[in-house]
Structure formats: structure tokens, C-alpha cells
């Protein structure tokens, strides 16, 4: 109605469909370049029920410096907690936004067409950066590619995606496209490894006929692997899609970026054989080691009417980009491994989480 660009937090994915022409996708630490740049340069920001989490804002004193900010929230304690706003509105988002729409229409308001076009032109330039770009090399499976194939092969099915916490979670957020709300279940605030699999069980109990996939990492999945037994007992056909790189990938990434590649305790030496593990629970275990095998494994996983662990061997040292490192601002995103955060921000950022 307004024609304005829209961005979403990690938790908000699907509220506006990712195919919507106004959607810029997710913002924040691993968000889209265009979403973060738009946040940085906008002159009016309307925050609907988000709470200015540190993963969203980046460096506070450089967060959207030139904008007037409107913040609608049901929780008064979120107002002016980290970001000072110009127009705070306490209330139920649904009711408040409904009122705003009525008022907007009654007043016959409209954004200035010329300015709006200039704004979109600018945003489209940022889109051209193609921030999610990655390069497929040889037959090794890139984790991004695995999520992309999963999306392509499940997009026409009623699918719920849950995740654990780490690199795989961010790749899932970036490469799985959500068109509806409440199809995406992830631990955003607390960041609980081990969340995704039991959450998938809960979602499958509520939606026995839907496809429920836990996109997991090899480390996270082990935190609540005992629930395999629950899934099998209740005949819950939950699918566990492990992006297996044998590392706690996000820990490794931070160690690479901030601790000169000293991979202290972030490599898992003795992972179980996930296929045999599934087998031992009387579930189905599948494995893809190369890009040739990937589609078959995903298809087989979807078609199996049983609990499945799909062990996807992905390239081990892939990093999750784009990224705003702690201590940096939205317009200082790193787009690839070759870019480095400036030294001063890096030193300051090191103490942050």
C-alpha cells in the first residue's frame, strides 16, 4: 500500500513473503546487504514488533543514524532500551497497524512518487552486489547449495523448517525462502543449540501431514540426539538435514576472523556415523557426499514416511557471509573472506559477542 521497502529480523522471516516485490529479506549480522544499507540510509523507520536486538543493530551509535524512528511494541520495556526512538507506540501490533492503515487511507496519504523511485533505484543498486553469491567448485557440496536444493525440492509442499544454532541456521535463513509466517522455527534470542530437533517434533505432532525439516549442524544435533527415540516411538516423520562440516562452524568462523585461526576445541574428532545412528534408532539414514548425490538424497528423504537423518557432507571451511562483525556498523558489511574488518573496530568488537 505504501510501496516502501520492508526488511525482517531473523524471527520475522515469512511475515512478508520473500517473493514480495517490497521485501529486502533479513537484516542484521548475516542479513542482506541491501536490507542493512537501506536501514542505514533511511530517513523514516517503522519498527513493527521487533526489539532492536544487538544482532540486528550492529554498533549502536552508528545504527540508522539519519532516521526518525517509529517503534510499535506490546512490551513497554523494549521502548528506548537500546535505541532511542522518536515515536513510541505501546500496543498490539495488529490493532495499531490496523488503525494506522485506516488513518493513512482516510488522509489520502501517499509517498512522493519521484522520491520513492529514487530510493528504490538506490536499493536496486545495492541488490546488484548480490551479497549471497558463492562459488560452487567441483563435486563438493557447498552448504549454501544444499539449502538451496532443499528449498527447490520442498517449496511446493507445506513445509516447516526448524534449525539449531550456528552457520547452518544463518544459511537456512538466507537461502530458504519463506512465503508464510510461522513456518520458520528457530532459537533467535537465546541461541540454543539443540533447539531444532525437539522443536521439529513438536511441530510434527501439531501438523502430522506436513513436512517438518530440522536444518542442523553436526555439533548442534548431538545436543538433543536422544529425541530420535521419541520421534520413532510416535511415528513422527521428522527429517533431520545435517550440514556436516565436522566443525562447530560458527565458532570456527569467529576464531578464524578474530583469533588468527586458532581453532581451539571447535573441531569434532569423533562424530558418530549418522547413517548407522539413524539405523540404530530404527529410523532411516541417508548420506550425500557429492553434488551428484544431493538431489536424490533430498528426494528420498522427503518421500520416506519415517524419521530420517540426511547426513550432507559439505565443504569444511566455508564461512557465512555477508557479515557485520561485532563492533561494526551496517554500512561496514564484509561480503567475502577477502575483506577484513578494520583493526580498530576488530579490537573493540572482540570483547562483544
Amino acid at each position: 500500500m505504501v510501496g516502501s521497502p520492508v526488511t525482517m529480523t531473523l524471527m520475522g522471516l515469512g511475515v512478508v513473503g520473500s517473493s514480495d516485490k517490497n521485501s529486502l529479506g533479513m537484516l542484521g549480522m548475516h542479513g542482506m546487504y541491501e536490507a542493512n544499507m537501506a536501514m542505514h540510509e533511511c530517513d523514516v523507520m517503522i519498527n513493527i514488533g521487533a526489539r532492536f536486538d544487538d544482532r540486528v543493530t550492529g554498533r549502536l551509535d552508528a545504527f540508522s543514524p539519519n532516521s526518525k524512528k517509529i517503534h510499535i511494541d506490546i512490551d513497554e520495556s523494549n521502548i528506548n532500551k537500546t535505541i532511542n526512538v522518536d515515536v513510541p507506540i505501546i500496543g498490539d501490533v495488529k490493532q495499531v497497524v490496523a488503525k494506522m492503515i485506516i488513518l493513512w487511507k482516510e488522509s489520502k496519504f501517499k509517498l512522493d512518487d519521484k522520491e520513492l523511485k529514487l530510493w528504490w533505484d538506490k536499493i536496486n543498486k545495492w541488490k546488484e552486489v548480490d551479497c549471497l553469491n558463492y562459488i560452487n567448485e567441483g563435486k563438493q557440496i557447498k552448504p549454501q547449495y544444499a539449502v538451496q536444493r532443499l528449498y527447490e525440492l520442498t517449496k511446493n509442499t507445506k513445509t516447516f523448517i526448524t534449525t539449531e544454532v550456528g552457520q547452518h541456521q544463518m544459511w537456512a535463513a538466507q537461502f530458504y525462502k519463506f512465503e508464510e509466517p510461522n513456518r520458520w522455527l528457530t532459537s533467535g534470542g537465546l541461541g540454543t543449540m539443540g533447539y531444532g530437533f525437539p522443536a521439529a517434533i513438536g511441530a510434527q505432532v501439531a501438523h502430522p501431514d506436513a513436512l517438518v525439516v530440522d536444518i542442523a549442524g553436526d555439533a548442534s544435533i548431538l545436543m538433543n540426539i536422544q529425541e530420535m527415540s521419541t520421534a520413532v516411538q510416535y511415528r513422527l516423520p521428522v527429517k533431520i538435514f545435517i550440514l556436516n562440516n565436522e566443525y562447530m562452524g560458527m565458532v570456527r568462523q569467529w576464531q578464524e576472523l578474530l583469533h588468527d585461526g586458532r581453532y581451539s576445541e571447535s573441531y569434532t574428532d569423533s562424530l558418530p556415523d549418522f547413517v548407522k545412528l539413524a539405523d540404530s534408532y530404527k529410523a532411516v539414514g541417508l548420506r550425500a557426499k557429492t553434488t551428484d548425490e544431493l538431489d536424490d538424497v533430498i528426494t528420498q528423504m522427503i518421500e520416506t514416511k519415517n524419521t530420517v537423518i540426511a547426513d550432507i557432507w559439505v565443504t569444511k571451511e566455508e564461512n557465512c557471509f555477508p557479515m557485520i562483525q561485532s563492533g561494526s556498523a551496517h554500512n561496514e558489511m564484509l561480503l567475502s573472506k577477502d575483506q577484513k574488518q578494520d583493526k580498530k573496530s576488530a579490537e573493540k568488537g572482540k570483547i562483544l559477542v
Partner: protein
Amino acid sequence: MNNEITGAEIVIKSLAEQDVEVVFGYPGGAVLPIYDSLFKQNSIKHVLVRQEGGAIHAAEGYARSTGKTGVVLVTSGPGATNVVTGLTDAMMDSVPIVCITGQVPQHLIGSDAFQECDTTGITRPCTKHNYLVKDVNKLSFVFHEAFTIAKNGRPGPVLIDIPKDVQFASGTYEEKNKIIIPSHRLFEPSPDFEKNKIKEAVELISKAKKTNFLYWWRMY
């Protein structure tokens, strides 16, 4: 006192009246009476997890994919401490949860009894509200209020700690619609309160050259 039932039966009756279809849980000494009542009925399904941490995340998954309140049932001590991560998770991400924990009988509270812990103390900062129910006659009120609080305003987890003697004691059940929850416990801001702010916001948007909407989630 013919219409008196046990505390454990009140628990199940309250859940049934709140339209609870499924409970995620793990039995243990301090919740056996509730599990016994669960055994004697067919309306509520129980999903037996393998560790309590799994129960609360499953309840979160259930709640977030349906918009309903997720229900967890675990025992005292380690049962309760194992759900702390999930309670904190639900608190941070605004997921409506009602978590029922068993507690050692009242005369043993504070004696370092087997599987005793200070559940309400431990979970105070990671719940919207929590209760230690000492009087069986207050049990149904507590349940109906807990379900309301879990979804009212910003949703979140509510915990009900029930000593074993209260589960065995007899008392009366009060129906949901006969209960009046004090208004100061609830938060229902009307958009009319913020009329001027809403007007200001809409006018501000109309003058913008470079607007940007930022969304979290809508589910309730």
C-alpha cells in the same frame, strides 16, 4: 463434600478445559499422581520425550507452529532444572508455554529432600510468572490464570510448581468462566490510548523520502 476431586485430577481437568490436546513430558517421583490421572483419561495426549530439555523445545515448536500454548509436565529437581534453558528460550522469543513441575511434599521443602530444588527461585528470572501452589483449592484458579498470562500482552512461559501432597489432597474445581482474573495482572493496551502517537507516526511516514519497515513476527 461429594464434588471434591484430587489435586492431580484438578490439573488434568484444568488442562482439558483449556483445550490442551497434547502435553510434552517426562515422569518422576514428584509428579506420579498427575501421571496417574493422565493414565485414566483419553482427551489429552502425552508425548514422552527422552530428556526434559526436549519436552520444552517440543512444546515451543508446537506453540510456534500453531499459535496455541505449549504444555510441559516434568518432575521436581533435575526435571525442573533441565527445562531452565527452554524456559529462557521461550522468554526471549515470546513463546507461550505453561510448564508444570512436581515438587517434594510441603513438609519436606527446604530439607534438601531427594530431587528437591528451589524451582520457583531458579525460574523466577526466566518465566513471565511462576507459582508454588500450596492450597489444592487454588489449583484451578492458578491454571486458568497461568494460561491467560502465557498469552496476554507479550507471550511467554509460566511455571506452576505443585508439591506432591497438594496433588494428593482433595479440593474443588472451579471452571474457567467462573474465575475472575484481577485486571492488574493483565496488560491490554488499547490503540485508542495511543491515538495521537499513531497520528504522528502516520504523518511522519507520509513525509518520508526513504522509508523502511522492519518486521518481527505476527502469530497471535
